[in-house]
């Protein structure tokens, strides 16, 4: 097992593109750290630098405290699972799995024993003599995993290993990878653009955008306390509702009433315990802020309590386990410069509601807001005020 550290790691390509910028990350012994971010954000480049497949422009990558910037990939003692699986098409499943051991001059008996053990764990025993082209996508994925685990490396690096599978198989393989990693206890860096994969697999999740690390935290922490607007918008499906708003002092001037957040015709009082826990609120009184509300923190007022706002309902979507209600907020939704198109919600917010809700399209619904869970962001820096 190993600890992997990246200190101020930067990667610039010859054409001047900065793929990764001053990345600081530490992966603990036996930890599964997920790098997540949109396509082209630099997560795969970061992984490839750890593997030694890309040179580091500046900064240091260490494995178990030893800098490996100039160490060849084969001497880093890491195994990598690729997006395309990268199985050797001319070799059988057995030979694919035994490949690295053969070239490391392991004893034949040991190779047989390790491959047999990996095949047993991954339920590949009936396929050992087949060629990769004779296997299904899921089986190929397992062989790729098997090839990595027979080596018993210090760390696994996985580059979107599930992205070529269909949705159902992906869920199954995701669970298998999680179980396998936990049982082997091997330090793992896992790259994905799929936030569900990231949240379900990761001990911790590192969100990257534009080559810059946005936040690294445990999945729940990441979801509940996003460090900035990017993380708030990226993590969660449907994404967090982001609305341009103002923080004002409640009641008349000079009053002692706590701050309220104002957006369009709506005013919501912020619970005193939230204000007390975050003194930074004072600085933003009278200022513009970006308000964030997770869809599950908006409820049908007829079912759940809390401060109420009234919204004309534009759309009701039945999803079985929940109902998603799209309501017009009567003011502009926040659109940041780097927001993806799917975040441009055109003055509409989405609520995930109890399926018993009777709220219908066209009516003005009373929506209860869980104000203790509101998020607030600085519109200029994008950083959370609550951080």
């Amino acid at each position, binding site marked *: 097992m190993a600890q992997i550290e990246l200190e101020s790691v930067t990667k610039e390509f010859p054409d001047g593109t900065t793929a990764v910028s001053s990345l600081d990350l530490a992966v603990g012994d036996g930890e599964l750290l997920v790098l997540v971010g949109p396509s082209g954000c630099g997560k795969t480049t970061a992984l490839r630098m750890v593997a030694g497949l890309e040179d580091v422009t500046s900064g240091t990558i260490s494995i178990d405290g030893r800098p490996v910037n100039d160490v060849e990939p*084969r001497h880093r003692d890491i195994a990598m699972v*690729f997006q395309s699986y*990268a199985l*050797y098409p*001319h070799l059988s499943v057995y030979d694919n799995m035994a490949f*690295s051991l053969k070239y490391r001059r392991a004893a034949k008996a040991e190779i047989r024993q390790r491959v047999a053990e990996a095949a047993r764990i991954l339920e590949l025993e009936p396929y050992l003599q087949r060629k990769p082209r004779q296997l299904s996508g899921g089986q190929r994925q397992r062989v790729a995993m098997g090839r990595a685990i027979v080596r018993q490396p210090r760390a696994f690096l996985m580059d979107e290993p599930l992205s070529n599978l269909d949705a159902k198989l992906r869920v199954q393989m995701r669970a298998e990878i999680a179980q396998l990693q936990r049982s082997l206890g091997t330090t793992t860096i896992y790259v994905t653009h799929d936030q569900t994969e990231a949240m379900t697999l990761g001990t911790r999740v590192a969100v990257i955008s534009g080559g810059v690390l946005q936040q690294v935290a445990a999945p729940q922490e990441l979801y509940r306390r996003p460090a900035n607007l990017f993380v708030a918008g990226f993590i969660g499906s449907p994404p967090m509702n982001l609305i341009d708003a103002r923080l004002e002092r409640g009641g008349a001037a000079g009053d002692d009433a706590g701050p309220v957040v104002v957006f369009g015709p709506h005013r919501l009082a912020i619970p005193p315990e939230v204000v007390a826990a975050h003194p930074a609120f004072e600085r933003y009184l009278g200022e513009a802020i970006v308000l964030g509300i997770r869809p599950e923190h908006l409820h049908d007022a007829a079912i759940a309590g809390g401060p109420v706002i009234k919204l004309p309902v534009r759309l009701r979507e039945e999803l079985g386990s929940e109902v998603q209600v799209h309501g017009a907020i009567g003011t502009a939704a926040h659109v940041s410069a780097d927001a993806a198109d799917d975040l441009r919600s055109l003055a509409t917010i989405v609520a995930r509601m109890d399926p018993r809700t009777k709220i219908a399209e066209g009516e003005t619904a009373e929506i209860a807001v869980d104000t203790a869970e509101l998020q607030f962001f600085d519109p200029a820096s994008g950083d959370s005020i609550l951080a």
Partner: protein
Amino acid sequence: MAAIRQSGRNSRLNKKMAIWALFTLMVIIAVVMLYPFWYIIDNAFRSAGQFDRQAGHSLIGWKELFANLPVAAQLLNSTLVCAASIAIILIVSTTAGFAFAKLRYRGSGMVFLLVVSALMVPLQSIIFPEIVNLGNVHLTSSYAGAVLVYAALGTPFATFLMATYYRGISDELIEAAVIDGLGYERTFLQIAIPLSLPAIATVTVLQFIQIWDDLLVALFFLPTNQRTITAGLATLATGRTTSIPPLMAGSLISAIPAIVVYLIFQRHLVKGLTLGMGK
């Protein structure tokens, strides 16, 4: 309903007619392609008189061929020159193709362009500089000189083909091998070469046919006692009159190795020629 049935019948009829038209065209093309072979075989088994009358068959043409030409020695010469040239072409083109396709280094695109641009230089334009250069290092009038010229002429196309083929092999496959513990050298030998057998077969067949059938280089660079079969056959037609039957017999013998090589590599050749056309 009847109209739909009628339309279905018309569509089937049109399809059948199209297939027959295509079949007829293919037969015509096959006849045009195969007729020269038939002409060679038919006239190889005649005497000069029988050839003039186009009647009767005999082995006189073969006797004349073996009396006038050291056929076995020249076949051996052709084989040696072909084998050595193709070996050099394969060694250079596989390694260079792999480097161009999979190794990133400054200026590789420019070097590749330079190599490929050599494809556009006709042999006739460089034959005299070649003679002078090889003469300076005493390599004219020897197998070595001809082999080097053939290798130099064949390598650009072979490199282009191999580089194209290697580009089709996923980078991740090469990287997986590198991470598995192989350096780039062993990755090339253990992974790239086995995967590129169709391209290697294609290069082998195309170069074999080209070198085996070449006359110009063989005449300029090989001494009389080391002539290839193609150059040897050309000498049969240098007199004031040419006896066609021995020439046909020699052409038949000369064509057999090319056909055998083609048949051996045929399956791979088709794969190699269609490389890059999709999944």
